[in-house]
């Protein structure tokens, strides 16, 4: 057992876990943050994507201990109170989700994609960048639309800040 100290959605936490505990298990089982999902166990599907120190990571493929000292943001931590993150709003407005299972990972990956590309995105780039996130429901059509829409919204909201 080890104590892992980290910041999750802005809150400092210390959790005693078995050394083999995965980050996703810490989030789901110990902190009850069940918005982060497990879809494949082999780092392919991306349902488990969270942000560690601002970068998208697959939380099923790293040990909780590797996140010691890090700042983790999950799907539960991106809205500002009642105000949705522009990516969340874009997924809803563009019908970018159906069953909702891949959605948290998709949104967390998509935010990372927009941030890395500075809002300069086209369809081909979004499709290439989403390779690590699998959706079985939407056929990606509306996810791609949502990401491009959000890229515009995030640019606007950045400019406003």
């Amino acid at each position, binding site marked *: 057992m080890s104590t892992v100290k980290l910041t999750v959605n802005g809150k400092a936490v210390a959790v005693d876990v078995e050394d083999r505990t995965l980050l996703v298990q810490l989030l789901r089982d110990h902190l009850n943050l069940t918005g982060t999902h497990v879809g494949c166990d*082999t780092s*392919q599907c991306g349902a488990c994507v969270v942000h560690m120190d601002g970068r998208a990571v697959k939380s099923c493929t790293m040990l909780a201990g590797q996140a010691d000292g890090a700042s983790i943001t999950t799907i539960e931590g991106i809205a500002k109170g009642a105000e949705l993150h522009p990516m969340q709003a874009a997924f809803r407005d563009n019908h970018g989700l159906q069953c909702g299972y891949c959605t948290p990972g998709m949104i967390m990956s998509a935010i990372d994609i927009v941030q890395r590309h500075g809002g300069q995105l086209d369809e081909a780039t979004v499709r290439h960048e989403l390779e690590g996130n699998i959706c079985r429901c939407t056929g990606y059509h509306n996810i791609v639309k949502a990401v491009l829409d959000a890229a515009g919204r995030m640019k606007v909201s950045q400019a406003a800040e």
Partner: protein
Amino acid sequence: MGVEGIGARVVRKEDKRFITGKGRYVDDIKLLGMTHAHFVRSPHAHAKVKGIDSSAALNMPGVVAVLTGQQIVDDKVGNLICGWAITSKDGSPMKMGAWPAMAPETVRFVGQAVAVVIAESKNLARDAAEAVVVSYEELPAVADVHAAIKSGAPQLHPEAPGNQVYDWVIGDEGATDAAFAKAANVVKLDVTNNRLAPNAMEPRAALADYDAAEEHFTLYTTSQNPHVARLVLSAFYNIAPEHKLRVIAPDVGGGFGSKIFIYPEEMVALWASKKIGRPVKWTGDRTEAFLTDAHGRDHVTHAEMAFDANNKITGLKVKTYANFGAYMSLFSSSVPTYLYATLLSGQYNIPAIHAEVIGVYTNTTPVDAYRGAGRPEASYLIERLMETAARQLNVDPAALRRNNFITEFPHQTPVIMAYDVGDFNASLDAAMKAIDYAGFAGRKAKAKADGKLRGIGVSCYIEACGIAPSKAVGSLGAGVGLWESAEVRVNPVGTIEILTGSHSHGQGHETTFCQLVAERLGVPISQVSIVHGDTDKVQFGMGTYGSRSAAVGLTAILKAMEKMESKAKKIAAHALEASEADIVIENGEFKVTGTDKAIALPMVALAAYTAHNLPDGMEPGLKESAFYDPTNFTFPAGTYICELEVDAGTGKTSFVNFVAADDFGRLINPMIVEGQVHGGLVQGIGQALLEHAIYDDNGQPITASFMDYAMPRADDVPSFNLSHTTTLCPGNPLGIKGCGEAGAIGASAAVINAITDAIGKNNLEMPATPDRVWRTIHAA
């Protein structure tokens, strides 16, 4: 249409919880004292279980119990059933091999459970499962359908000699033979419909909780049809009588058919919960999903189509071998028979059809309904035949289809189905216009000049969904009725709850079903909530599959609404001292037509519950229910056209354009309908280009993770150009046909027809991987 009524592109009510991480799936639920199950599964495709030594596992930390197949048999938990009886051509019933929830004696596919470890955590259960020592005596195994029916092949079940489940026929053999005897041309085709893994993103899960004081079970499960699960668990598996078993399907993360069936894991979780006296949770991992979720498709078919001198189809002969895997899953028997062969007429006037379907056991994961269920196999076969025929007869593929379209309705096909309505020319025209079919030759020539092989492929699909009249399916062997139930509860303050037996696993029922209420009453959808997925709340239901939730489920809601409205009008008329016939409902008010007299819905509702001033003899309350049984299947149809380029150097396919023109009848929410089509198209494209659940000759699965099984990724597929043509379905009052499966049914033929057009060679099996396409291009 109001802003939230029928036809409006209303943003989904359920999305808020999914985009904020507040969805509630089975694995998100924790119960006090909950234990975790991990199954010990066979590594062999076929073996005798000689012994199970649990002693080491039982001594490991946190282990609560190790339970085996023999114990579940001893406790008289029933064997798994198949709910649709099929009769072979010789009159004999289908041959059912016994399928216990965990195997006591013989395992017949890799992944079949032989024991289960229950422990304090998931990790501890997994650790201990590795310490359970199972002695196996390996037996010869067979995975290929043709190998399985050869004499001398390994035999799976003593009940099924020759590994044959059934040999079933449909249609008029004599008339079909006569048509072929007179044919001017005969087109022949051999087709394999590749085995697929459904791969809903949420793995299956079950959480069972036994209350010893009440002798009552609660099961949280990943189900498309919780009431059917309760019925089967109760009536056939001896878990508990229905009133002592509550089944809850909370948010369900996709299904595509695979979550219709009641699997061994749910049975074991319930049984184990009673045995150990604590809640038991099982959540599958992705490899378990590949090994144990029912697979789809897996047909091998030879077909011949006869044409007269005018290129009119005169006959069709089909012989299909359907691989069922090691056991007959819940609805498996119906898939290659009544859901497949009854659609072999496609969109075409075919006077004589004869089909024979031979169901075969192999040492592989059981096969059952997967998005489309039989209809993709039929549509793929017919549309590949039409394309092959066009090439052989040297006519334009679209023109050959048009020359054979059914144009008068109703149309009785020779294979049971009576198409009620359609306009196949309209959808073909719309798709051809959208893709500029006329300009294709020029684009192909230009691509050729650039060194690219460009092709175009047409697919005109039809399907039967909205299943179905209970009487009709009952006469064909179904073990269940296929109606739907609904209840409308108007609360005393005028808010409305709709209880439905349909159950969304991504389809957006919480939005579309509210739109019907908004349309009829003129109230905002925020005032309406949908209650589903819980057998304690909803009286009964048949669930969501076969594109039936709008055509059947929503119609049941409409029927209940009509009853409620009729009573509410009486109350309003009484309050307004008007004639009931003069009351109209607008914007949430009951108005006396032609006057300014009105009473708001909440006042009507309150009057119904206070019961101070109701018409004489009227019962208090405002709640009505209905059961709706359709009068026919519905027949969504459409045309998909795909234009693509193949790189002759690598065999890689790149999409140029993909258009879909669908006729789904009336659309409740076009945004949601389009989403259903997008998802279906990508599953069809996935089958055509990428996906294949592969076994080696010994029954070892080669594709048991996302590293081996090629799921469609965002950069494998294009964006789509969708349109709709409309003929309203006469079979239900809303005119709805259903849209959930069309994409998966029609897309794969369009892709393969386009690739074979591009490379100029007709023989190409799915999935058309770059390797396979390259070899086909360069084959001598």
